[in-house]
């Protein structure tokens, strides 16, 4: 029993990464799909979620679960409100021009990052998980003496990691229902398809844009609150999720929700597995190579539509 158990562990790690990545990338994909804005500051909203989770947990104290649940509500709200303010103060002023918004969100990235450094500091700080019991995993193998059960076999996962996976799945399903079943979801999809006609049919496009930008940031912040008990909060932590989200969104097809989820699973899983067996750097190299190949051979992404 060498390779098999390690693979199971790697897949579990990968699934945690994929779950968080799916939520983060969904925010980026949503903002691009509806607003045609490439949000370079997306990773900073992720960082903001993690840092806010630490502040909330530290301020509330008591049992870690209380702080964690409060952070799950407060951090996405704060990130959403800041994003809506940024939309109103900056993106709206440059008329959502594709090039200008890239430069504007780069500026936003540095403002948020340096503000976090000033207010939160350069340390990496942990947030305690609400629960974190170890779960030993059984392993079954065909050995010399027939079928053998190894339990416990030394490695395992934690209940919190399983919770992250389940929570992400629940949130993704809830988001899908929100998008396809609610009036605001319908308004968002109509705005994405044809901004001008949406406007002619009474849809306040600017308000929709502000809410979508806030929602995208809130999704990143929510993903960060889920991961921060495993990863710690740091003011430079936004880089990796930004890179991986872009990779996911490009591979999945810009603006395609389904493509984003599928690509997040693919990239998150392979990132986890390759990081365990080889190195995290190799995982990033391969993911970036995959992006290059997708851009060359299928520029619209897996589920993207070619412009008509």
């Amino acid at each position: 029993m060498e390779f098999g158990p390690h693979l199971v562990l790697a897949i579990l790690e990968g699934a945690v990464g994929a779950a968080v990545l799916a939520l983060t990338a969904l925010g980026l994909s949503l903002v691009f799909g509806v607003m045609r804005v490439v949000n370079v500051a997306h990773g900073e909203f992720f960082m903001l979620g993690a840092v806010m989770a630490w502040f909330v947990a530290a301020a509330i104290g008591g049992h870690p679960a209380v702080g964690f649940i409060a952070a799950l509500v407060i951090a996405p709200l704060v990130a959403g409100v800041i994003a809506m303010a940024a939309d109103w103060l900056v993106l709206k002023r440059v008329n959502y021009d594709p090039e200008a918004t890239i430069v504007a969100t780069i500026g936003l990235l540095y403002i948020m990052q340096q503000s976090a450094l000033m207010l939160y500091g350069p340390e990496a700080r942990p947030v305690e998980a609400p629960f974190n019991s170890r779960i030993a995993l059984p392993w079954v193998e065909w050995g010399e003496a027939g079928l053998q059960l190894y339990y416990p076999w030394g490695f395992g996962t934690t209940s919190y990691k399983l919770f992250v996976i389940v929570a992400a799945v629940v949130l993704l399903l809830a988001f899908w229902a929100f998008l396809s079943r609610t009036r605001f979801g319908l308004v968002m999809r109509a705005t994405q398809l044809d901004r001008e006609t949406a406007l002619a049919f009474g849809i306040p496009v600017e308000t929709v844009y502000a809410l979508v930008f806030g929602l995208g940031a809130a999704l990143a912040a929510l993903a960060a609150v889920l991961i921060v008990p495993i990863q710690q909060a740091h003011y430079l932590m936004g880089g990796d999720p930004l890179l991986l989200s872009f990779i996911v969104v490009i591979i999945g097809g810009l603006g395609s929700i389904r493509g984003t989820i599928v690509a997040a699973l693919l990239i998150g899983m392979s990132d986890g597995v390759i990081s365990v067996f080889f190195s995290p750097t190799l995982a990033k190299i391969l993911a970036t190579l995959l992006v290059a190949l997708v851009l060359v051979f299928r520029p619209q992404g897996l589920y993207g539509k070619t412009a008509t």
Partner: protein
Amino acid sequence: MLEVQDIEAGYGPVRVLHGLSLEARAGEVLCLLGRNGAGKTTTLKAIMGLLPLTAGRILLDGTEISALPAHRIARQGVGYVPQGRRLFSELTVAENIEIGLMAGGKDAGTRDRVLDMFPRLRERLAQRAGTLSGGEQQMLATARALAVEPRLLLLDEPTEGLQPSMIDLIRETVVTLRAKGVAIVLVEQRIDAVLALADRVTFIENGNSRETVTPSELKSDRALIHKYVGV
């Protein structure tokens, strides 16, 4: 009903309309005739608030709708069938109609009335709009505009590329609405359709409104058509 007074508008720095005026009355079909690029579509977009006016104003029953933000104009009772239909192609037929109902603040009763006018759409409620045939797409674009329960309906070349039976259906719909007292502004290239439907015709040339005549005047004086449409 609708009064467009000396409006100037365009796309960015390019001005298309230079002091255009027109008037549409309740229970009447006003046709806009003119060459390609004369400013007919731009006029409709300006009425919908989709282009900023640099001069002039637009009144609907005395309310200055050109002072409202674009997303509040539909709620004033203005339905719009844009050129090329512009359906929300990834949304279903039902969702496209729902957008119209939301725009006008209308309920299921309106939805039923609209679907009664286009029974074919009722059979295809769950179908994606982009997969409908051309005629069905035009029905849906019209149904979406009627879901607003408009007192003013703007139609931009609604019969473009349709087969004759579908053109008849659109024409019947326009006649029905006119009888109900809706003011209709129709952009149409085909002279025979204009002559059959219009109560008045306003010619548009180089972003300006020229003569406004009745179809009978037009029949007796073909020179106008030669002058402004060039056929």
